[in-house]
């Protein structure tokens, strides 16, 4: 990859999702908090995927919280990168064939 910005950005993403996410606030976000205060939070249903191996940003079976969350973050970054780079490089080819 020729662009240093992309390399630095991807490494930063890995550090954020794989390491720094451990220190993220675990309080409910404003949306969930507000839904609770207004009163409709209890209408939420579990996602059909709530028992999947990576649910809630942890890796099932990994006891250590830091490791579990960090691994989930790294898997998420790798998956997002693989899919988005795949889509955008494919779309770029459409552009090339048109011009």
């Amino acid at each position: 990859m020729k662009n240093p910005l992309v390399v630095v950005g991807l490494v930063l993403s890995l550090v954020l999702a794989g390491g720094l996410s451990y220190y993220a606030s675990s309080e409910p976000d404003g949306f969930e908090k507000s839904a609770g205060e207004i009163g409709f939070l209890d209408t939420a249903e579990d996602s059909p995927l709530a028992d999947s191996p990576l649910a809630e940003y942890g890796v099932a079976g990994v006891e250590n919280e830091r490791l579990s969350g960090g691994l989930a973050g790294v898997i998420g970054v790798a998956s997002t990168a693989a899919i988005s780079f795949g889509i955008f490089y494919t779309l770029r080819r459409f552009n090339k064939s048109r011009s």
Partner: protein
Amino acid sequence: MHIPDGFIDIPTSAAFAAVAAVGVAASLKGAAKSLDEKTAPLAGLTATFIFAVQMINFPVAAGTSGHLFGSVLAAVLVGPYVATLALSVVLLLQALLFADGGLTAAGLNVFNLSLVGVWVGYGAFLLVKKILPKNKPSITTAATIAGFISVPAAVMGFVLQYAIGANSTFSVTAVFAGMMSAHVLIGVGEAVITAFSVTAVMASRPDLVYGYRGTKAQLEIRKA
């Protein structure tokens, strides 16, 4: 702001999923025209970076947190069509891999963040950019203000969905007031993260920034 299953009824969720699908399909066309060898990697990075930063919930008030939406950050860096796709990839992966956000609610979330957040946010960016001097700092300023605006805009999307098809019966006014007040500080966080990120890319590769390239093109037309 990841809507779980259950808040909004199935017919309403399905209708918004259909609208979201049309928006994503249109964006595939638009994105194909704007992506080239240089911008495709930045587009992939933008989606990946937004996923990573969305994992970092920041505290906003006692017992409450918030995280980046990323709609305006993406729209300014890679253009609104690509941004719609980038946000949709992030939202769908979060729902499918991490059970973050519901499955029947996926269309609601894509509508709010990938369509409303991106396009209202990008519109706000263009408006603010228009009244500011035509220089680099204005890009960051406009992105920052638009980043803030995109948060209540996306929240309005949810309020609309609630008004049409909620599974609970609280007044829309109460939902509007509660949701808006909960998201003011999250909007400030959005503005700060958008400002830092756009500044970093503008400092290193301004030639890749979609929202800035537009400015240069306009200037060239006037000169001619």
